[in-house]
Each structure stands twice: as C-alpha cells, then as structure tokens.
C-alpha cells in the first residue's frame, strides 16, 4: 500500500481506492477525502506533508482541514450572508482538531475546484453584497474563506459541463485549480495572489457575461461546480411499510390568528402558564452555576464526563439544564468556547430503552438505523479516534426508564464518556436521589461516577419569587393570595408546576366573580382558596352524599358487617344480609340480589368500594376504599 518509505519525509504515497483498478498516488498539495463519521460525507482535507512515523510502520499526513456546509454550525452559516452551495467547502482553522491523520483513513483523492458564481443565479445584488458584508463578518479564524468545490475524481463522467444556459446553478470552471490553495493566514500574500486568481476566474467562467465582480476582500467567494448527481442508492424501496422519508411531521397551521390577551388577568394567565419560557430561572442560581461550570470545563478541555441530577418532579431540573445549554450555545456562538453538539433524549419519549441509540444517532448524524446497528455505529464513533471531533453534550431525561435487565443501555451511556476519544458529556436526570445505588449494578454505578446534584423542592419563598418573576410587574394578585398559594404548595410538594396551575385557576375564578362591584379586580384570598379546594379536596365525601339511597345503605351495611366481623373485608353475601336488615329498619322494600349486586358494582366503579372481579357474584369480597369515619361523616351530615 505504501510506496516509498524514506527515513522520515515521504514525497508521495500510493493507496488503493475501492472501485478503481489502479492504485492512486497521493502527493502533497492534493485534496483528499478522509474517513469520518458520516459515510456519505467524508471529511475533506488538503495534504500538506507526508511523513513516516520513525520505523516507517505508521504513515502519517499533515493536513489542512476543510469543512463542509453541513458541518458548519447554523449560527456561523448565517454570517456568510448568502446561500451556500451544498457542495461548498470552507477553510478550517479551529485549533481543536489534530492535523495529523493516519494514512489508512485516507479514502481517495478528490478534486477541489474554484469556480465562479453564475451571476444569473446569485444575482448581481447578491454578489456585491458579499463583498461588502464579508468584511464585517467576524469569522474569527473559524473559516476564513468561502469556497471550492469538491469533485469526485472517481466520477469521471463529465456530465456537469453542461452550459451556463441550462438550469445548473453554477457554471463549472473546468480547469482544475491545483494552485488555488488558499491558506489565508497572512493577508499580505493573499492580497497579491488574489488579483491573479480573479482573472482566472473571470476568464474561466463560461457564460458569465462580465457582470460578475469578484469580491475585493480577503474572503474570496468562489463557487463550485456540482458533483454529478449519480447516486442510485437513494432510491427508496417501494412497498416497505416504513415512514416515508419525505414525510415531514407537522400540525396544520391555523387559519385564524390567536387572540392576544385582552386584560390584566389574561395577561397574567399567559405568563403563568408552565409552558411560557421565563427570561431567567430564579432560585436555581447555584445549581445553574454548578452545571454550567461542569459542562463548560469539559467542553474546553475536550474531555468527557457524567453528571447525575435528581429531584422530585417540578423542581426545575430539565429547565435548568436547558437554560445552561442556551447559555453555553450563546457562548459558543461568540467563540468563547469551542462549539459543541447538544442532544436531548427522554426515557419517557421512547417506546423501548434501546431506542435511545436510534435517537442519539439520528440527532448526531441524521442517519436512521435499527437499535443494534445504531449502537454499533455509536460505539465505533465514541471509541475510535477520529479527526476533528467536537464535544457532544447528551442530556438523558427520565433515566430510570432506560433500565433494562442487563442494563447495557445505561452501561454504554456511562462508558462512552470515559473513552479517551469520545468527548462526550452526559447529563442524566431522574427523580430519586439514590437511583444509582438502587437500580444500577456496580459497574454501571461506578461509571456514572460521583458527580451528583440534587434539586431540593422549592420553599415557599422561592415559589413566591418564581411567581413574582413570571408576573414581572403585572399586578394581578394580592400579596396575601400569593403567599397562601406558595405556602400551601411548599407544604404539599414544592412542585412549581402545581403552584403555577393554581394561580392560573385562581385568575379564572376571579374573572368569573368580578360581577361583584366591590372587588378590586385582583386575585384575592377567596379565589385562591376556591382554586385550592377544587384541586386538592377529595370528592369522596360529596360523592357519598350524592349517592342514591340504596348505595348509601349499602355503605352502611358494609361498615356494620366489618364491625361484626372485626375485619376490613367481607363477602357480598355477608354484607347483603346486613343490607336487607337495614332496608327493613329504614322502612324500604328489600331489594333483590341482582339489584344489590348492581348497587355494589356502581360503588365499585367509582372506587368507593374495592371489589373482586364481578364473575364471582355473591362470593366477591368487598373492601372500603374510604375510611369508615369519612363514610359515617358523609352519611350523618344529611
């Protein structure tokens, strides 16, 4: 495979390319494709130098990386100020990536062409725009010039040289521009080289009718010829019951616009909805800081790690992590930290723990695969050194749902971050603090590590602060009312969702009761009390009060029979004897057994009674689902 092995420096290299009979020679200054995560889109780079590794066993190449459009983060792409061509590549100067690669990972050479933009397509205005805008863009050494096109040397059919007249967006500049290696680190040289190149471009652009002006900046815009569209593997096999690939998940758009909130109460209600995203998360500053610094340090160091976050529902775990990610993303956008990839999966949002692999893979690369295949691909990705890898931050919500008997999903999730090349940060969320000890086997718990954080339920002061910050000076609540809600919820669960829901319900009640002229229009104590009652009071007692006469009698008979037996359980037959006696006592006509069973079933359907399956008939056992005192209280009140 390797041709000439001199002591250290190698002038050229012979590799065999799949599908070509002859071996291909690779020399410095040539553009190559390098094996990457995505098989359809390998990395592009230019060989700068080839050298042997001491004994000559290992050949290495020093390369200059290029990034494809698809690899450029969206935020950066916007800075370009124009629509990039799908085959366009950009110079890469990030420091994170190792610029030495093993020659084994080189797939094949590739032709990178500098082409000019067809004015018809980009439009005159667009072209000039590029020139003006580009200067102001702060690419900050990320990619310093736009363009070049990769053309696969293997695709020898030159069907791309169709003329400028047809609908091809770009006119290929047919000449291979080997010399157009635009490492633009130093501006001086660049300026000089530029002019000559512009000439070439203008000359070469067939069909460009001289309107085209090359931008006079260091960001040269060239465009690319298109790779010939010959990929028969894209055919979708007909007849397979798969989700159609072109299907886009969407809910139809509404035909009429939403109404805006009309008054203060409606405004308050919109703000208090759990879904409305607050500007900041009050009362979770410490936790925010901890998670932020954890993830940030891992991203900067390019290492990996795990963190376990626990807390009862509604304490802001997921919200805080999302907030951290928003901030980190922002920091990455302004280049304070290297870019990273954020992926979120939720144990409750998948049908089977192994679907986690599928979802992670789809989020990472967009590929679809079966769980087993996805696991293998991810394993390969995280375990093997790959050039140019950015950190991946993975949020696993509702971790306990990923439990399997062999725990291999959890094991893999926590094992990957420990790999040297993975650059994976895993944040896991679950409810119980001792989940690792309770459900995980030792090797999984050990890999999860001891970076734990627990979110305490909100105290009443915090809840109050949360509502206040949400309302943000919209005056809709009386001070006392707010305090009542927050104290009540803090005492029950400390669940912020509950708190917001009660407040929202209170505004509704207030709105309906504003017929009273003395009311201030603010939500007061009485409204909050009513909302609290609605949500927390159990309906058992009212249900017993509203039950029919025979149903009430039956409940009494149940209690009487329990007292007689000294047990909390009796068969229907036993209770029915008591029931008949009670009927006579009350002066009612005794009911038949079928009717008695029907009464019993109705009480069972409401779950006032707990019953055995009804096929047991008179032998089914009966238990009370309410306390005896409650029943007696409800029946006495009449």
């Amino acid at each position: 495979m390797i041709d000439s092995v001199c002591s250290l420096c190698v002038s050229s290299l012979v590799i065999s390319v799949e599908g070509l009979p002859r071996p291909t020679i690779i020399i410095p200054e040539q553009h190559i494709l390098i094996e990457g995560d995505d098989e359809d889109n390998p990395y592009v780079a230019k060989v700068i130098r080839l050298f042997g590794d001491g004994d000559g066993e290992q050949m290495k190449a020093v390369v200059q990386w290029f990034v494809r459009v698809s690899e450029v983060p969206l935020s950066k792409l916007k800075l370009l100020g124009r629509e990039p061509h799908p085959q366009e590549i950009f110079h890469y100067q990030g420091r994170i990536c190792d610029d030495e690669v093993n020659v084994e990972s080189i797939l094949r050479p590739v032709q990178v062409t500098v082409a000019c933009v067809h004015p018809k397509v980009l439009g005159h205005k667009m072209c000039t725009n590029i020139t003006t805008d580009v200067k102001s863009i702060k690419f900050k050494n990320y990619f310093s010039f736009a363009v070049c096109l990769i053309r696969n040397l293997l695709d020898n059919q030159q069907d791309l040289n169709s003329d400028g007249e047809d609908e091809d967006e770009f006119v290929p500049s047919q000449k291979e521009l080997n010399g157009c290696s635009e490492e633009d680190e130093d501006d001086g040289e660049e300026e000089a080289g530029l002019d000559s190149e512009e000439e070439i471009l203008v000359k070469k652009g067939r069909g460009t009718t001289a309107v085209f002006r090359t931008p006079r900046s260091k960001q040269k815009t060239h465009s690319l010829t298109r790779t010939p569209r010959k990929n028969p593997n894209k055919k979708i096999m007909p007849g397979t019951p798969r989700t159609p690939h072109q299907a886009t998940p969407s809910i139809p758009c509404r035909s009429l616009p939403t109404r805006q909130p009309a008054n203060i109460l409606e405004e308050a209600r919109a703000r208090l909805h759990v879904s409305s995203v607050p500007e900041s998360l009050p009362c979770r500053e410490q936790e925010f800081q901890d998670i932020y610094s954890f993830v940030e340090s891992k991203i900067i160091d390019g290492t990996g790690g795990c963190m376990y976050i626990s807390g009862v529902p509604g304490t802001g775990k997921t919200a805080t992590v999302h907030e951290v990610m928003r901030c980190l993303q922002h920091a990455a956008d302004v280049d304070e930290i290297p870019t990273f990839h954020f992926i979120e999966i939720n144990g409750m949002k998948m049908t089977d723990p192994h679907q986690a692999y599928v979802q992670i893979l789809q989020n990472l690369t967009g590929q679809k695969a079966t769980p087993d295949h996805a696991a293998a691909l991810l394993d390969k990705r995280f375990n093997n050194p790959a050039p140019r890898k950015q950190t991946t931050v993975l949020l696993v919500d509702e971790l306990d749902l990923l439990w399997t008997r062999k725990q291999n999903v959890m094991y893999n999730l926590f094992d990957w971050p420990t790999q040297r090349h993975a650059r994976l940060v895993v944040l896991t969320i679950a409810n119980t603090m001792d989940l690792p000890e309770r459900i995980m086997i030792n090797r999984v718990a050990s890999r999860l590590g001891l970076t734990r954080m627990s979110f305490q339920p909100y105290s009443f002061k915090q809840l109050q602060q949360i509502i206040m910050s949400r309302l943000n000076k919209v005056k809709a609540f009386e001070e006392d009312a707010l305090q009542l809600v927050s104290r009540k919820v803090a005492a029950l669960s400390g669940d912020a969702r509950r708190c917001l829901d009660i407040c929202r319900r209170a505004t509704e009640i207030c709105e309906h009761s504003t017929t009273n002229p003395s009311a201030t229009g603010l939500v007061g104590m009485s409204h909050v009390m009513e909302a609290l009652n609605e949500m927390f009071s159990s309906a058992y007692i009212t249900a017993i009060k509203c039950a029919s006469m025979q149903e009430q009698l039956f409940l009494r008979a149940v209690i009487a029979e329990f007292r007689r037996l000294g047990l909390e359980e009796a068969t229907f037959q036993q209770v029915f004897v008591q029931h008949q006696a009670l009927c006579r006592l009350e002066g009612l006509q005794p009911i038949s057994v079928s009717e008695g069973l029907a009464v019993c079933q109705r009480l069972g359907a409401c779950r006032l009674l707990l019953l055995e399956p009804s096929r047991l008939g008179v032998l089914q056992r009966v238990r009370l689902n309410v306390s005896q005192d409650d029943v007696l209280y409800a029946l006495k009140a009449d």
Partner: protein
Amino acid sequence: MPQLHFRFRFRCSRGTGCVGSCVRIHEKAASWCIVGVVVTLCACRHLLELLRRSAIQGESNSVLIVGPRGAGKTMLLQCVLRDLLQEKEAQKNLLQVHLNGLLQTDDRIALKEITRQLNLENVVGDKVFGSFAENLAFLLEALKKGDRSSSRPVLFVLDEFDLFAHHKNQTLLYNLFDVSQSAQTPVAVVGVTCRLDVLELLEKRVKSRFSHRQIHLLSSFGFSEYLQTVRTQLSLPDDFTDRGFAQDWNSSIQTLCEDKSVEEALQRHFNSSKDFRSLHMLLMLCLSRVSVSKPSIKPADLLDASRLCLCDAKANMLHGLSILELCLIIAMKHLNDVYEGEPFNLQMVHNEFKKFLQRKSNSMYNFEQPVVMKAFEHLQQLELIRPVDGSSAKTQREFQLMRLMLDHSQIMEALQKYPQCPTDVKQWAMSAFG
C-alpha cells in the same frame, strides 16, 4: 308515532338528564327541566371557557371530568363541544382526536389512532405507516414543531381515562401532558372517567404535568327533580307534527306521573340508582307497549316494566331447572347451613340428597350416580355453582370442591314460583335441618 320520537331521543342523547337540561337552559329553551343546574352550569361554563381559550388563544390545558356512570359526563362534553363549534373562530381552528380506553388498549394502537385522526403525513388512506417507535417519534416531532401562535390547537378526548393510566410506563399520558405544559403545539387534553381516585393512578411525573383541574359531576338532585325529568323526557315537544295528539299525549303523561303507584315505582328506582341510563331503560320498556290501539302509557305498563327491571336474574334461572337439579341446590343450601358456607363436593351433596330420599317412602327421585353427576355439571355450566379457586383440576370430579353462587333468599323465592313444585321438596327446603 311518539315511540320513534323517544327512541330517537333516548338513543341520540347518551346520558341526557341534568346536563342535557342544563345545556337546554343554556340555550334558553324553557321546556327543559331544572335539575342540578347550579353544579352542572358551573361545570359547563368552566369547560367551555377552557376549551374556548385553547381553541382561540392557543392555550394548552388539561382537565378531567369525573363522575359516576350515567351522570352525563360525555353529554357535558358533547354539549360544550357543540356550543364551541358554533363559534366560527373555534370551528376553523380546532382539531379533534377522540380516544377510548376500551378501544385503544395500548399505546401502540392509541398512537396509530391519533396519527390517523390528525391525518399526519405518514398516513396514506386509512393506513398508518411505520413502527411504534417511529410513530411516537413522528408524532412528538410534529407536536414539537408547532407553536402557540401558528399551529392549530388539538383537542384530545380520552374516554375511560383510567384505562390509559394502565398502559406501560404511561407513555402516552406523559407525552400528552408534557406537550400541554411546554411551548409546543397547543393541546387540550380532556379525560373522562368514573373513578374518583383517578389521580392516584397517575405516575408522579405524569401527575406533576397534569394541571389538576377536575370537574366533578355528581348527581345531587332529589326525587322531585327526578320525577320532573321523567315527565319532560316523556312529553312531546310543542312543535310535534300532530298537535292534537301531542296535547292528548302530554296530558296522559301528566296523569301518569301523578298516579300514586307510578310514583312509588319511580321512587323505588330513584332509591336504587340516580343513573339516567337505567331510567331510560325503564321508560323504553313502557313505551314499547304503546300501539295505535292503545295510544298512551297506563300505570300498569310502568309497573310491569318496573317489575321486569327489578326482578332477580339468578332466581329466574332457577325456574328452568329440573326437579333433580333443584333438589341438589336445596341439598347444597342445607350443607351451607350446616358447615357455614364451607365448600362442598358432589359426593357430599349426593349424600345429603340420599338422606332426604331415605325419609321418603316412594323412590320417585332415586337417580343413578351418573345422572346426578350430569345434573351437577349442568349446574356448574349455568354458573350456579363454581369450583373453589386453586382446587386443582386433577381431583376427581366427584370430589372437586364447589361453592354455591346463590343466596338463600333467591332459592326460597324461586321455590315459591316454581311451577308444580312437589310439596315434600318445598318442605325439605324450608326445614331447618336436612
């Protein structure tokens, strides 16, 4: 004929009654009776406001309607939806998905049904493509892409809500409630259930995401309102085609409801249950006796119908038994008396029966063992006796332990009515000891 009219009325309005009436009042139709108006009007307004806000302002909500069977929960929802859809703004926007816990028995079926009803992109004709996992991902993606201001709100109605809580991991409920609590496509989740303890069924994460709005629909009316409902349910409307007939009919209903015996029968039904569906059953039975020659309901019809409704099913079955089978039942009754409800087997029953026969001089009931066995098996097939749980099938049939599924009162009642029951058998049944 009025029959058709009522049949239509009873069939179309599942659980008409207090809610139906309340909604009628809502519509300012004065002819409808006033039953539990305060409670149901309040519930009606609450639900209507909630759904209106979802439809028009794109607010996500979740609510549970809880009440005993036949209290009019579904009726309430239907009436509110009908009112809501009269508003053009709501009608144009709202998408509806109706699920029933008895039909969608697991999340896989429920998801397919949701996808089909929403007519998402992976639906071709009536078929939903993709695996369970793909469907879930697809639906969640679809809901996630929407937002409050631009996508159409979706109303999810989950009938028999408690059954959805038994699905694995409560995935569907978690996701629906999660969408309703996050900035995605606006959804309104309405659960309908008769279980009062439904919140305890929800897993803690699901429960936290549920907004805890509950509308309790309890039938808190008294007998006078019940009677009033019967009257209005049976009366013909003023716009009935044959006006003369309608007047005669309505006056006959008036006299019917004032009849003492009718009132007593209705009182008995009311005491037994406030369920409107069982009332409709009774009224339907009366109406079916109306014919051209007899164009009104007589008190006797209602009493007959009432007797038919209240009669004991098991006691009726005893009438069809042979004398031998009846004797076996009586023997079992005596065994139950002696051993205080302990299970018995065929041999014991046969012995008891033989003891009875020995006391009698004539041997007209002297049957062979196989015949008795056959009779015993027949009783088991009728489920008048059932094998004790856990008794293995390996034991010989003669010694398999059984329990009697009848109450003594049922046996005695059946004996009274049994045609040409031999006196000695009757006496044997009534004697304290076999």
